[in-house]
């Protein structure tokens, strides 16, 4: 997964083409740490279908807020530089990574 920062976020996400997935996380967020292995496995499994990135909000707080993210974990899909769908903690807990997979399939079109 590509590590995003305030330096590369514009180029990698907002100016980029295609479907982009961003995991907003931080080390202090226990649920984020618990989720991380599943997110990495999800990214590996779907390699090539979207660009998979993660953003450590520690040190990139203003960037996260500018993206309307003020709670962790948050998983966001961007397309053509626009936010198209976002999962907050509650949605992740409810649907698990399966819901994120379903959303990816829907956004890519055609499924796997």
């Amino acid at each position, binding site marked *: 997964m590509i590590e995003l920062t305030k330096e590369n976020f514009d180029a990698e996400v907002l100016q980029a083409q295609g479907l982009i997935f961003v995991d907003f996380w*931080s080390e202090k967020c*226990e649920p984020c740490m618990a989720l991380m292995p599943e997110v990495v496995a999800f990214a590996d499994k779907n390699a090539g279908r979207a660009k998979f990135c993660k953003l450590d*909000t520690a040190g990139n*707080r203003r960037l996260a807020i500018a993206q*309307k*993210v*003020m*709670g962790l974990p948050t998983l966001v899909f961007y397309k053509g530089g626009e936010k198209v769908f976002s999962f907050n903690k509650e949605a992740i807990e409810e649907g698990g990574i399966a819901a994120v997979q379903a959303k990816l399939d829907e956004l890519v079109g055609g499924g796997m």
Partner: protein
Amino acid sequence: MSQPYDILIVGAGPGGLTAGIYGSRARLKTAIIEKGRAGGQAATTMEMENYPGFYEKTTGPGVMDQFAAHATHFGTEIIKGQVTDLDLSGEIKKVTTKTGETYQARTVILSPGAQPRTLGVKGEGQLRGKGVSYCATCDADFFEELDVVVVGNGDAAIEEAMYLTKFAETVTVIVIHNEGVLDCNKMSAEKAMKNPKIKWIWNSVLDEIIGDELVEGVRVKNIKTSEISDLDVNGVFVFIGSVPNTDFLQGKVALNKWGYITTNDKMETNIPGVYAVGDAREKYLRQVVTAAADGAIAAVAAERYLEGHVEGRVTPEDLSKLNA
């Protein structure tokens, strides 16, 4: 299918981990199924200074890592999975996870924990993760130089309010009681009252959370005068107690009307060989120390139950029958 576990524990919070320590040390084949990271709710709170022996620079995640290391050190297996179904009738119990794995066990200790209660006010759902939070350690960083409100006045609310003052510009605590009355422990109350960054709104409840894409403010209602006032804030932290994670146990073990698992003082549920510990249990005080105590009791009760099923061993029950 492999050999059944002697003790299978559902949930690796402090109660489940302690049951693991006791079970493993009794040389019983013991495993814990945990959906996320070990530690339960205790791992989401930074300020923790009431677990005996740990009071200097200790954190919730730090103490919980020690619990988990302790359990695995003595042989407890921690399995990643989310339990979705259980068959608790019969001598061999079956526990099934979301991904379809089934585990067999001779006893089951339920330690599913609880999760934060939500307010149920307008704006709360859609602004969750956008300024509304139930986890200060997760989200406090975002509120550096910003203003937040805390709803609640128990231990968690007041301790997290103090934690938030390290980040936020102001922390306003909305308290339903009369001025000066807090449900939290006296030591925390005294500390919080002296903290210049904490402001108080008494006799009041949160009525609505306002904001389009991020939290912009809250509407506060005074319960004595019914007066409504608006407050500009960027964050809302809610600590108003918890609800047990027992939906998956409906119809499997006896629950009280609030969904807490009912047990006796041996942590036995209404099903033989099935025990419950920690915050999901009907009990007086929900703390790490009481969850740990529950775990020890349940593991020992499970051990005795298993012994009762070993041929040739005389149990206390046999003796009382002899004396009868």
